[in-house]
């Protein structure tokens, strides 16, 4: 898994590439925590290039969301392909996260 991080004004866009499992989720967790601790209030996670996620990845996202909620920020996901979205749906997380189709939609939702 690789993380590509860009800033669009006050929005931090994290593009995730690869597989988010027990091996890779710690570095995503670390990145999210550091962005939030650093005071960022708007984070967009782009899943366009994510091929796989398991419950460790989901746990990491829930942790990020809850941290962000505590600091009154906004946390948006975008670009989930259908098999990734399935997993969110099965775990009833589709209603828990704000999920947008494209990165553009995600940015709009955060503006």
């Amino acid at each position, binding site marked *: 898994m690789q993380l590509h991080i860009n800033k669009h004004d006050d929005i931090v866009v994290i593009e995730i590439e690869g597989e988010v499992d027990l091996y890779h989720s710690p570095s995503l967790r670390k990145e999210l925590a550091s962005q939030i601790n650093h005071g960022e209030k708007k984070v967009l996670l782009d899943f366009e290039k994510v091929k796989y996620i398991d419950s460790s990845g989901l746990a990491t996202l829930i942790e990020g969301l809850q941290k962000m909620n505590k600091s009154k920020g906004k946390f948006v996901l975008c670009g989930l392909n259908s098999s990734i979205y399935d997993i969110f749906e099965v775990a*009833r997380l589709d209603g828990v996260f704000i999920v947008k189709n494209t990165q553009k939609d995600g940015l709009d939702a955060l503006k």
Partner: protein
Amino acid sequence: MARCCNSDTIQLCISSNPKYLKLVRSVILQSALIVGFSEKDSRDVTLAVDEAITNIIKHSYMSSYDKKIKINVNFRDEYLELVLRDYGKKADPKTIKSRDLKDVKPGGLGVFFIKKIMDNVCYDMSPKHGTKLILKKYFYKKNCMDNKEG
């Protein structure tokens, strides 16, 4: 579904290091495809095994990465059977359960996925050391889900 094989077995033995998860996933995905599961079902079975191995690493071996995990893939006439053997701490079966989906919090989804995806999930605690987790998925769903646990 085009099934091609009689009873047959693949064995894979790894150490309990998360870096091998991807390799395990590719073995399970290939096995499910070979035996004729759809892409979607094969991905699901792969997720279930990933979750089970993740739990072994976290809970049975408390995240020590140099312990042994044995994975048997058994191609049976009516189902695909995955047997995961560890030699770590035995769990109290009562603690092996998924959280309430409405109680959103980090963690607690692994067992949920395993039970959701597989038709039969059995934690066999009878070995002297460690646990034998037996997961089955049938090729054709039975009418009465009589073998659905949990």
